[in-house]
């Protein structure tokens, strides 16, 4: 039996699409030419990226002293940016893995891009622990490699080492997961390509996918296994990142609440970034029918939820600081809220706790402009959260004689803006050459939750073969016995769900 969404639910695919329409819509950006706006934005991002790379090279060439750090504040923008990017990277895996396990169908329209965002964000994040090292040329020493130093191992007590493991595992699993999902879609693109060189490239990327049942079977299995693998990683990565702080002795860092608090914050900022990107992408790539208001609303709800969790965490911290009776801790939080960095704390509170509460209003969470603005505000707030945690804790810790202020230099800012530029360069390239929606997955839900499918289901559940003509080749679910294939898919998915 086909599973058809109840009428009361909004369809996830609008515009009475056929399978072919989906393929056409998604492949259009790959096959067509980019408009001048794309080139403009790409150029801008490219310049920013070059500026950032220049600043990074300058840092590596001359020394960390070109940043604004000092004897007391040993980490500031570098680790702030690191944690911020890692946090952003969370949404992709959460959407594709966790929501897959929870059978949330609405994820299908956004998971591809969210995962791409994850990959790029983690790349940006991984940059910072590298360049923040005084001697980056010895960075491989943090890996437990066999060596000639008398078998010298890294220090397994150090959370920084766990970071290395966590981030590298997360990055590799995410990359594989993303790529596996891309294989059938690459095949679709390959089959449609006429120009020989791109066709060659896509056929290499597609790993010889032929769309037969065995392939699909394995594809499903691998996806599920990877989803299972990726799910704990979603939680472990940011938990471990938070342990960089939680295991220290510094008041304001030494907090057991950090792991869940960081994960919630990460999901919060990740979804905000997904929204920022999606809202632009759906407009530019004309994907409004796939990334619908419903999707946006769902994401807004998650932002609201995680934002509230983050808010609770902030208040808990304040409560514990008071309740514990530890004077240093009490002062640390007092200083956060009222000290020289009160503005950062205020920005964090406003952006992260107050602004998401607007999402309680349906009108607001379905309003594209407000959503877009809020999604940016949330990410600004999350950047400040990390800044507040890192800088305001160490700039005034135990020994009052060493209290200082942190003043960023233009290199600090340049490196940060550079990573934003680099991120957008990668994302813009991705949006032109990769299928930005998971074709194969979206098609599986077309009949169940697509607007057309829902309508048809009301009138007739039969005779679909005629409506969805097998007009294209290569894309497995739509090829030949497309309806049967996809119905099987839907069925199997439902079966699993029941298990």
């Amino acid at each position: 039996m086909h599973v058809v969404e109840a009428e009361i639910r909004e369809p996830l695919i609008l515009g009475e699409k056929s399978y072919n329409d989906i393929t056409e819509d998604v492949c259009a950006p790959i096959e067509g030419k980019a408009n001048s706006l794309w080139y403009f934005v790409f150029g801008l991002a490219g310049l920013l990226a070059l500026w950032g790379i220049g600043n990074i090279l300058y840092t590596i060439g001359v020394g960390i002293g070109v940043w604004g750090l000092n004897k007391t504040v040993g980490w500031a923008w570098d680790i702030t940016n690191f944690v911020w990017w890692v946090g952003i990277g969370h949404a992709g895996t959460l959407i594709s893995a966790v929501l897959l396990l929870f059978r949330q169908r609405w994820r299908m329209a956004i998971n591809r891009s969210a995962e791409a965002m994850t990959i790029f964000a983690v790349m940006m994040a991984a940059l910072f622990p590298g360049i923040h090292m005084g001697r980056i040329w010895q960075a491989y020493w943090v890996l437990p490699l066999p060596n000639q130093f008398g078998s010298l191992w890294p220090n397994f007590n150090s959370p920084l080492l766990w970071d290395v493991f966590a981030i590298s595992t997360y990055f590799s699993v995410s990359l594989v997961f993303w790529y596996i999902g891309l294989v059938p879609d690459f095949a679709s693109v390959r089959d449609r390509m006429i120009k020989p060189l791109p066709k060659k490239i896509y056929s290499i990327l597609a790993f010889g996918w032929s769309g037969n049942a065995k392939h699909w079977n394995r594809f499903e299995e691998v996806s599920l296994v990877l989803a299972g693998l990726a799910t704990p990683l979603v939680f472990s990565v940011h938990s471990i990142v938070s342990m960089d702080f939680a295991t220290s002795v510094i008041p304001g860092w030494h907090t057991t609440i950090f792991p869940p608090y960081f994960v919630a914050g990460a999901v919060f900022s990740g979804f905000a970034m997904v929204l920022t990107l999606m809202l632009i992408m759906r407009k530019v790539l004309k994907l409004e029918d796939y990334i619908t208001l419903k999707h946006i609303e769902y994401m807004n709800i998650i932002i609201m939820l995680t934002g509230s969790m983050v808010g609770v965490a902030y208040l808990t911290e304040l409560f514990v600081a008071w309740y514990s009776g530890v004077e240093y801790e009490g002062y640390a939080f007092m200083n956060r809220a009222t000290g020289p960095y009160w503005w950062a704390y205020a920005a964090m509170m406003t952006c992260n706790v107050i602004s998401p509460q607007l999402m309680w209003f349906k009108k607001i969470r379905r309003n594209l402009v407000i959503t877009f603005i809020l999604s940016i505000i949330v990410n600004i707030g999350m950047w400040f959260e990390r800044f507040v945690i890192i800088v305001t804790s160490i700039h005034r810790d135990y020994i009052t004689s060493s209290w200082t202020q942190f003043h960023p230099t233009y290199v600090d800012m340049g490196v940060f803006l550079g990573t934003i530029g680099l991120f957008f360069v990668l994302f813009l390239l991705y949006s032109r050459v990769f299928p930005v929606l998971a074709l194969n997955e979206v098609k599986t839900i077309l009949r169940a939750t697509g607007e057309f499918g829902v309508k048809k289901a009301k009138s007739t559940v039969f005779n679909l073969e005629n409506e969805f003509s097998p007009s294209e080749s290569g894309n497995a679910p739509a090829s030949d016995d497309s309806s049967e294939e996809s119905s099987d898919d839907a069925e199997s998915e439902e079966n699993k769900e029941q298990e």
Partner: protein
Amino acid sequence: MADTKKYWKGIEELEQAPEFVESSKKEFSEYVPVDEFVGNASEDSSPTNRRDFLKVLGFSVTAATLAACEAPVTKSIPFLNKPEDLTPGVANYYSSTFFDGLDLASIRIKTREGRPILIEGNHNAPTSKGAVNARVNSSVLSLYDSKRSKGPAKKIGESWAKNLNWGIVDKEVAQNLRSAASNGGKVVLLSNTIISPASKGAVDYFGAFIGAQGGSFEHVTYDAISASGILDANQKTFGRRVLPTYNFEKAKTIVSFSADFLNTWLNALTYTKDYSSNRKPDGDWMSKHFQFETTLSLSGSAADIRGALKPSEIAEAVKYIYGKVGGDTTGKVSNKLKLKLDKAAESLLATKGESLVIAGSNNGGIQILVNAINDKLNNYGSTIDLDKEVYTRKGSDVAFSKLAKEMSAGEVSALIIVGLNPSYVAPSSLSFDEALSKVGTVVYTGDRLDETGDKADYFAPSSHYLESWDVLNPTKGEYAFVQPVINPLFRTRQWQESLLKWSGNENTFEVFVKSTAKSFLGTEASWINAVHDGYFLSNAFDSVPASVSDTTSEIEDSSSEPVSIISSAISSAVITNAVSQASVTPSGKFELELYVKTGLGNGDQSFNPWLHELPDPISKMTYDNYIAMNPVDVLELFDLEDTKATRRDFLYIGQESPAKVLTVTVGESTVTLPVVAQPGQALGTIGIAVGYGKKGTEVFTRQEWLGDLFDAENSEKNTIGKNVFPLQSQDLWVSNTISSGVTVAVLEGARYPMATTQTHHTMMGRKLVNETVLSTFLEQQGAAKEKGGYNETVLIADSYGDEKTTRQLDLWEEHAIDLGHRWGLSIDLNLCIGCGACVTACHLENNVAVVGKDEVRRSREMHWLRVDRYYSSHVTTDDKDVLVDDLSDLNTLTEYADAEVADSGDDLSVVYQPLMCQHCNHAPCETVCPVAATTHSDEGLNQMTYNRCVGTRYCANNCPYKVRRFNWFQYDDLNIPAFPDFAKVNHQQDDLGRMVLNPDVVVRSRGVMEKCSMCVQRIQAGKLEAKIDGIPVQDGAIQTACSSSCPTDGIKFGDLNNREHAVSDKKNDDRAYLLMEEIGTQPNIYYQTKVRNV
């Protein structure tokens, strides 16, 4: 049978064919059948055969390889004949003496491979008793100053012909002097105090020579930091122009009026040592120290009770005390001050005969009154010993001003200047520069062409004291030796030798010194012993051999017969006269005091980057002098309401909060300097340090360093700080205080970046420096660590509510800390006077980089050891003003914010805390390093493996004591064009300056973390020595740089596990506590609670 058997290799041998016989005589066969092996017929036809190919290949590979290797340039040349006592890698130590007219210290110089690299106190010597300060131990770097002059020079027109041969200069100078003398002209030698009988002999020889030529000779003595007032007062009271010996170790009550006797006043180092011997609460008694002063000084911050007063009030306060102790004067003092003065008088009277009153003023009247007070208190003969005369200050202001007048009148035909930079230090009222231009021939013997040098005619650079011979007589019966530890680096010559040369004596000064010394030493053997020891005690030779120099002052020097002091010796006429002389009528809003800073002293070492980077003990400012003004006054000057918030925000000086700028005008002189709000500065006064603004220091500075005071047109004005010596008033005595005619104006809008190592000044109620008072200490003896005691043990409740010590509550595995050595320090906060000698000692022992003002401004100084200074802070709670001494005292946000603001007035108290790596047994840094670059040693040291460090800075973040330092740049690179600011300041970037580096300590590269190693190189050396001797390491055998340099012996190093070592007892002492024990880091550094005698 056997020997008949014959073996042969071939038929030729068997048959002994003639060809075979021929060829067997040759060692090698001529014919090598290569072609047959190769069997390649085509080889013959090829232009390159295989051999040639291989040859060419081999050659080119070798050549390419060789070309790729950079041939090492070895600059050192191995000894052809190794000097007997010089073993590479083994240090030699020499005794010598430092005397520059300000500080006197017996020192021990460590040399490695012939290079002096370290200066420590000579703990056996009676002179200064092993005490050194930052100026003394840093002076080794002044030797390697590449900006010193490289050779003699003479002026031709307006320009200098530099690096001449000595012969040329000698000839011309001698000629000029002879012609001056033969024309009956006056030849004057102007010097700072000369305490060397040998040098005096040379001067006499020179004087006799001039006399023989028909000229007249005069030796004028003047000290940059003048003590003329005391000398002349003693002349008036006792008939002798002498400095007595002050016995601080005997004084139960010390009352000091603006005399910074722990820093720069007379023989400060000796006083420091003596003073500290009775500042221990656990001794038989503890002295009580009152300080009444204008600018907060080291002595003032060490005092039990300190009163701030204006310079004009000092005379009144002295009169008040004199009246209280039985004199017939009354002083007009404020009620607030009266309370403290009464206490002081009460204490003085209670310890009659065991007290000491001193004054720093150069005003003879005040000094006479102080003499009278001491006389009334029967202190002469007990705490003040007039018989044991001290010779270290002989300068006469009167003679100096007389000389200036004579010079202006053209009466001086030749002037030789020694050990003094008069153009720099003279009060402007003397117009010394103008006077100098009227002198026929001026010969300058400084170390470079500085202010005076520029105006001289001949420049005969004198050697650094580490390149010189001399014998000094600092105190009656005490001799100290100066011996060279290195050949002169440049073509310089001791000025004494120059004098001898110019007067036709071809002997070296060494010979002269030797013969002088022989006169009291007797044998050659005792000469060797004395030079080895660095000192010699004699009773036979009581005073400096009389010389012409003693007659230079206008006031007649009387006989050297000891004068017995009796009360009536000070006649009432003298007192009345003194009262009128002492009294100053102030005018204007501000009075000015020129003080001497710990770092630069009189400015002689202005080119020493260590001293510039050493933060001022009080203000923690580096690289500048400034106007110190009470916060209340600053706010008033800027027309702001005096609230805690304005004090905190408006007066804050930090990286991006530059200082405001003021202009101070005294008479004709004007100086523009940044203003620093200095708590403790007397209201209505300003203080400015002398010793800055030296010519030549402009090469260190950059536009960014000077903010709005940068002078683009006149780069010579961009010196480090400004010279305020010219501001001194010059009446009868040169006065460092000016009470009238001082105007202070705000230079609107101007800002000046200041580099400070500490931007926060209060403890915020945290128990960083534990402090109590003597009565509590005595009351709680043995019970201090119990609940409610002043040194309560830190107990933390576990999950069941049971109170446990931090050692019981432990997450980590214990190190085996009770086995073997466990090195540790015990730091007595009661003895720490904040002087910073340990900071510079650490600098030179451990090759710590100098980073320059801009980097210090960014809080990136590299000091492994710092001295934190905290001011007390009161907050208003429930309408009461209470001292914040416990965090739990603070309840509201306003109270927390208020606690950040230091007291500014009379309530102010100051504490110091030397802070280095605490070598925690549970070090937070060790667990977080991803590459295990910082680990714990078996001997309790937290050790840093620089090679392994990748520079994540996680350890520094996680250090609760914030003692880790990161190499932000490659500080020692000679070739980084991007950082001229380091190249200018950091001696490690100078080929000559690098010579001071300690070869036992690695110079850290950029990107690695560094920190105090507890001088692990010394520990290793000490352990080896003990092993060779076959005994356990003895207490005191190993000293860290900080412990050996501490002039008060406040830092003790030893093995905490060895009962023989003092530190192992100290750690269980009542007063012992661990810094922030509640974190559970379990440091190996123990602090001893500060106890104030109030």
